[in-house]
């Protein structure tokens, strides 16, 4: 850490980690409801638990991105943040909005479009929060050094805000509703979020491996070119069966099949940088998360996405547990691991601790990754069986679900393991070293 204002990132990291635990907790509750359907059925129906689970994920990932940007941008721009006060105010507003949304959901106050359940006033508050953030980071970049990493990161963050505006458009024609709903959902996670991911990974590679910036930044442009050249038209894989013209089956199949290429490039990139760099950075855990991020994103987003993206296959698997399997591993690999990589790298610097709590953190990595991987396999098998029984044999939905009980029990077990891993990650980032740090601060008041 070189700039005092980078410390505002700590607010965002703490908020994100708290919501991360809440997200997984609600995931475990839902996994329990699936196998014991009468569990909480009056108090907390599945649909309410589900909007909390998914919204908590989205909000904490965004909060993490904001934190990453507040840490990264002053260091890259070589200047203090434009306004740390505005950043702190923005954090509390965002956290308040998220909390208000969750409490509202518990009282059945929502707009009822998947992932975009936030009531209108919260959506508008999110826009205000995003504008505060974009103003703050853009002003910082404008007064400081401009690098490829800050360019790409800012483009991704502005894109997030711009495409979120489509959440305000809800036509009464379901086909048009779905088409533009994907402008938020797909163009986020398979578009502009990947710009954030690639730029943060590039920053971590420069810091952790010591490879020359010129090399890293050229890779960055190549990767994000591949991402958007495939990902934009790849939106077509959501336009197969919703009332849109048939040509999307060709466009969606071809371009979304190629979406695996940028993810593969990120694997090559991260491993090449580590191999070429040859620097042995003290923060081994941050390196593990960075390499884990590109690897798991390749499997979760790339391979598991490809599994069911071709139109003739998707015709059978669309909207089965195959989709759920892909969703879990993709979000974990690409965006959860990215955030945790950055938190693991930045938090020891921000808290002025040596990164000596790494063993616990790495245990957290392996336990959580095992949990999510096992869950993905359980859901994949469930989805294949479901697709066959329901879409080929024509068995009724509820009868098919009764056949999948074993897979759902395995998913619940994997979910509990994931929760334990997540608690370990949060604990390893927040707790160890705080006592020793307090002692050191007392001994060296001058610092």
């Amino acid at each position, binding site marked *: 850490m070189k700039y005092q204002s980078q410390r505002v990132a700590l607010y965002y990291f703490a908020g994100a980690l708290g919501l991360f635990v809440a997200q997984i907790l609600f995931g475990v509750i839902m996994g329990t409801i*699936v196998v014991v*359907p*009468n569990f909480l*059925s*009056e108090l907390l*129906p*599945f*649909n*309410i638990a*589900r*909007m909390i689970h998914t919204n908590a994920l989205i909000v904490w990932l965004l909060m993490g991105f904001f934190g990453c940007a507040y840490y990264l941008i002053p260091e890259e721009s070589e200047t203090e943040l434009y306004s740390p006060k505005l950043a702190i105010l923005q954090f509390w507003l965002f956290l308040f909005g998220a909390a208000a949304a969750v409490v509202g959901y518990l009282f059945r106050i*929502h*707009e*009822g479009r*998947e992932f975009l*359940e936030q009531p209108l006033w919260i959506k508008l508050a999110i826009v205000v929060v995003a504008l505060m953030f974009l103003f703050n980071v853009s002003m910082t970049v404008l007064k400081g050094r401009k690098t*490829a990493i800050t360019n790409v990161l800012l483009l991704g963050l502005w894109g997030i805000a711009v495409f979120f505006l489509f959440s305000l458009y809800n036509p*009464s*024609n*379901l086909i*048009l*509703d*779905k*088409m533009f709903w994907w402008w938020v959902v797909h163009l986020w996670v398979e578009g502009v979020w990947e710009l954030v991911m690639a730029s943060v990974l590039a920053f971590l590679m420069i810091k952790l491996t010591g490879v020359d910036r*010129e090399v890293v*930044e*050229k890779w960055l*442009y*190549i990767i994000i*070119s591949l991402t*958007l*050249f495939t990902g*934009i*038209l790849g*939106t*077509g894989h959501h336009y*197969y*069966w*919703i*009332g*849109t*013209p048939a*040509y*999307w*089956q060709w*466009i969606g199949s071809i371009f979304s099949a190629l979406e695996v290429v940028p993810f593969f490039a990120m694997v090559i990139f991260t491993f090449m940088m580590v191999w070429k760099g040859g620097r042995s950075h003290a923060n081994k855990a941050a390196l593990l998360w960075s390499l884990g991020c590109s690897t798991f994103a390749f499997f979760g987003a790339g391979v598991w996405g490809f599994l069911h993206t071709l139109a003739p296959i998707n*015709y059978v698997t*669309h*909207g*089965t547990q195959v989709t*759920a399997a892909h969703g879990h591993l993709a979000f974990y690999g690409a965006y959860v691991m990215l955030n945790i990589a950055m938190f693991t790298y930045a938090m020891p610097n921000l808290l002025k601790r040596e990164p000596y709590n790494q063993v616990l953190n790495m245990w957290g990595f392996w336990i959580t990754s095992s949990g999510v991987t096992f869950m993905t396999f359980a859901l994949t098998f469930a989805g294949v069986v479901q697709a066959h029984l*329901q*879409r*080929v*044999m024509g*068995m009724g*939905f*509820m009868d*098919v*679900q009764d056949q999948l009980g074993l897979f759902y029990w395995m998913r619940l077990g994997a979910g509990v393991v994931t929760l334990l891993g997540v608690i370990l990650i949060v604990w390893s980032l927040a707790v160890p070293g705080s006592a020793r740090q307090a002692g050191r601060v007392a001994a060296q008041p001058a610092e």
Partner: protein
Amino acid sequence: MSEILTKSAARNIFYGGTAFFFIVFAGLVAHSVSTVNAMSETHPVTPSVAAGKKVWERHACIDCHTILGEGAYYAPELGNVWVRYGGREDAATAREGIKLWIKSQPTGVEGRRQMPHFDISDAELDSLVDFFKWTSEINTQNWPPKVSG
């Protein structure tokens, strides 16, 4: 690689290519929107269908069910529920069947997934069924493969 491609060349390829692909995408989407609007002439979204969609959203049905394959995968597909209830053959019976099913929730059956009780007026239920009927008439390229959804 440094000889073949400089950083500024890579950057220009990125910006130019992204603009190109986005324009192509936006053009195709515009074409699809006009196709959908043309279909709406013969298959209009009536005020009742629009009101039914609001009922669908007010109760967050999509966070358990799926509609045209999108949703929470916890409860049956409803894009073709009209067809599953035999609406194409006997509209009146299908309408009553769907309404009665919603009104009789939750079943409380032990070990069966529970649909909550929703306070929906009879007029709103009719709108909701109109929304299901309208949705079942969308040209989905023959998806889902079976009437089971």
